């Protein structure tokens, strides 16, 4: 039998507020344990939560960016369970009435597009961390992370392969960074995905029993974990077994998933509305303000790059993979025509990208500014610099030797487009290479390229190649 994979993804995106969702303590990563936990985070007797508007604003931004319904009224609830890293004995989350309902994320796999529907996105607080190393016979608790604002984004089970799941996670990751609600740092746990995976006979419209896979802190692990899980479930079903609904942990070292807990030991969380917090009301005015401040979204920008600058869909996609690269491109092409824009796009996706990768830099830390890149491209387009030498100038710019024009000047790389000067050089080359001239005239086309090469060599690459071709052809024809 053929099996179809069904995947839904729950993502916890840490919102980029400076302080926690219900307290004034800092959310900065990496501080010594328990130095960023105030009375509210430690859950001293008598303390109360106060909602951080910045976290709400970010959730609204997300809702608007995915075309979802931003609910004018949502409710914070308490999710009750005991664990040492959960100081209050409950997590404040949104349950029955989340702030965001619906929305979609567009993905592309192997050149074909697809829309993944979102179920909801809700605000909640993170728990602290239990530290099991370094404590002999005991566990340590670090509450720095307790109360960090999270947006939990839940997708519908719309993905049908590990590749689609990864495409979704990447698109979501790019979006939350794009709208600047989350730094997307997966190593620090700022963007965490859990995958709900099930299989069903091809053609069925019933959902199979699902397993939730946790601990997927990279796109690669997400892909491999799903692939493993699909193999595991397929084997069980084909051997006549039944899938048990459970939570499984991915072990990247062994590339397998392991059962963490089954549905039978699931908690009864006893959700109820948190009486310490009023219902969250989002006014029309607040919504309008957030909408007005929302940056142009990747899809809109992509379309504009294609229609406005004549870029290919592929280039436009590369240049809208992130806010920074798009900003860089737009900085470079300000007021440019299509030819210049196309060249800028090529430089950014080609040479610049290669250099950034080599040095593991973000484009925001590029050694060549967008304005500098534009001046380089301008020199190429206006014929001052030949395409061949442009790479050398680019490298010199990267090395910090200054602007394109200065480098061209200093190194004498100005393209020779003076036909009088070129005629003389061509004359010399023809005179010095009678054999090649004879070969060409005898019908050997290759000999022509050799002659061009000789001219370029004589001008140290500065000759305008188009002109060299013309002159040489004319001379050889006479």
């Amino acid at each position, binding site marked *: 039998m053929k099996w179809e994979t069904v995947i839904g993804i729950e993502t916890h995106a840490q919102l980029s507020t400076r302080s926690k969702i219900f307290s004034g303590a800092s959310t900065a990563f990496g501080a010594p344990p328990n130095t960023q936990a105030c*009375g509210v985070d*430690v*859950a*001293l*007797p*008598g*303390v*109360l*939560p*106060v*909602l951080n508007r910045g976290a709400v604003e970010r959730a609204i931004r997300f809702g608007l960016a995915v075309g979802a319904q931003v609910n004018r009224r949502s409710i914070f609830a*308490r999710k*009750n369970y*005991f664990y*040492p890293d959960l*100081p*209050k*004995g*409950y997590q404040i989350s949104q349950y029955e009435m989340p702030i965001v309902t619906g929305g979609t994320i567009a993905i592309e796999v192997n050149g074909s597009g697809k829309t993944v529907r979102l179920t909801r996105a809700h605000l909640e607080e993170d728990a602290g961390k239990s530290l099991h190393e370094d404590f002999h016979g005991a566990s340590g*608790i670090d509450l720095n992370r307790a109360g960090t604002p999270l947006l939990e984004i839940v997708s519908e089970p719309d993905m049908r392969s590990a590749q689609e799941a990864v495409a979704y996670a990447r698109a979501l990751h790019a979006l939350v960074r794009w709208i600047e609600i989350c730094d997307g740092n997966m190593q620090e746990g700022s963007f965490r995905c859990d995958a709900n995976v099930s299989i069903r006979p091809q053609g069925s419209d019933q959902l199979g029993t699902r397993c939730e896979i946790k601990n997927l802190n990279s796109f690669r692990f997400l892909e491999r974990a799903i692939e493993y899980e699909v193999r595991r479930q397929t084997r069980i079903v084909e051997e006549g077994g039944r899938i048990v609904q459970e939570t499984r942990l991915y072990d990247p070292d062994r590339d397998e998933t392991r059962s963490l807990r089954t549905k039978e030991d699931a908690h*009864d969380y*006893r*959700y*109820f509305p948190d*009486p*310490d*917090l*009023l219902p969250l009301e989002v006014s029309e005015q607040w919504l309008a303000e957030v909408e007005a401040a929302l940056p142009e979204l990747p899809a809109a920008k992509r379309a504009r790059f294609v229609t406005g600058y004549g870029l290919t869909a592929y280039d436009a996609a590369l240049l809208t993979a992130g806010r920074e690269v798009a900003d860089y491109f737009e900085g470079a092409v300000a007021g440019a025509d299509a030819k210049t824009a196309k060249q800028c796009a090529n430089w950014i996706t080609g040479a610049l990208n290669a250099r950034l990768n080599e040095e593991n830099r973000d484009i925001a830390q590029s050694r060549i500014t967008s304005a500098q890149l534009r001046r380089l491209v301008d020199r190429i387009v206006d014929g001052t610099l030949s395409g061949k030498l442009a790479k050398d100038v680019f490298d010199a710019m990267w090395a910090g030797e200054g602007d394109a024009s200065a480098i061209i000047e200093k190194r004498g790389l100005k393209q020779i487009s003076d036909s009088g000067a070129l005629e003389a050089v061509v004359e010399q080359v023809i005179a010095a290479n009678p054999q090649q001239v004879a070969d060409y005239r005898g019908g050997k086309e290759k000999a022509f390229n050799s002659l061009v090469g000789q001219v370029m060599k004589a001008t140290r690459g500065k000759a305008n190649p188009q002109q060299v071709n013309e002159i040489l052809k004319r001379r050889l024809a006479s």
Partner: protein
Amino acid sequence: MRDHTIAGLSRELAARRISSVEAAQHFLRRIKALNDRYRCFITVDEAKTLAQAQAADRRLASGRGGPLTGIPIAQKDIFCAQGWLTTCGSKMLANFVSPYDAHVVERLNAAGAVNIGKTNMDEFAMGSSNETSHFGPVRNPWRVERVPGGSSGGSAAAVAARLAPGAIGTDTGGSIRQPAALSGISGLKPTYGVVSRYGMIAFASSLDQAGPMARSAEDLALMLNVMAGHDPRDSTSLERAPENYTRDLDRPLSRLRVGLPREFFAAGVAPDVAAAVDAAVNELRRLGCEPVELTLPNMGLSVPVYYVLAPAEASSNLARFDGVRYGYRAPDYADLEDMYKKTRAQGFGEEVKRRILIGTYVLSHGYYDAYYLRAQKVRRLIARDFEAAFRKCDVIVGPTSPTTAFRLGERAADPVQMYLSDIYTIAVNLAGLPGLSIPCGFDGDGLPIGLQIIGNYFSEARMLNVAHQYQVATDWHERVPPGIDA
């Protein structure tokens, strides 16, 4: 000194006829001599108290004092006070020294009030007799074999026994008004949201409200002036312009419509209580009030509704007492789960555990709709009854408690009987309304009887006006319990 009200003591302090240190020493001496008898205080710290009194004297000397500057005020041990043991009447917090001040404590400190000590209370404010305290029951100063009421029993008894001229308490289902009634003092629960809950150890967050306890309505007004006010650290604290709660004290009561709900005067009220309340209504009529008969049809559901909602919130609020970060931890345990179980089994008393179990049950999967949601709906019906009532009257009066102070141990084995002693106070919390209790007579055994005055939202000044005018016309509030001197 002993019988000064806050207003009286304030005049003496302002005129520098006595000093704050003298006042503090006087009450500290009385506490030392009498606390073994009444057990009103869990913690007394002379050095801290006298330091505050000295600071108050300096402030008074420089002419920057306010009405509460230098006044000793007892604090229910539910309020976090920096550097003070803050136990909430529980073994669970018997070792907990608060690192911060509650909003109310901050405000009292800023006004120059002097913390005379932390008062005994029912454990986590769960009780109506003060018998659930880990630190032993408080005795009623009128008759030591009687309970003072609860849960703010230590505060009520301290004021009644003249161990402090005023105290702060909290009221979730009657915990200020019922002990005020049973101990013969005045106590006010403000509108929900008027006083910040920040730093007040939560029992049932949607019902808890702090308020003043003293010997006169005027004193309650002076205290509320300091206690009330917006606090951004409590999201349920209301943003309102500051009020002067003394402003209406002297207003005549002519044509004031006094609502008399049929349900408050039905069977179940002890005859002496009913007679005293009737007499009080007559007194109000004599002062110009116009009685209005009315009904609160859903009142009878308030006790069952309360005993679903309050335990539900409590079961979650008390989850933080887990032995991990502070407070009591069981000495021997096998693993994490065993630590939780033993810590909570040993650290909480029986009544607290009963309510945690009830609350956990009503929030459980499959029971939530039938209990919690249903109770929330009835809660709205109860609030609507009051809305309708306040279209016909300005204040509602009735008994605070169906009986006078009962004997220690009398109801300890029967939780339902105990819960019924709050039958007239609970509906007020469910609706979020303000309510106060003032003395209005004595029963045949010489035990005090309380008159409850319930107002519409934010009508504290008007309610205090009614209470003050009644106290100008009567002297029940000036009676002194027999034998309160060592």
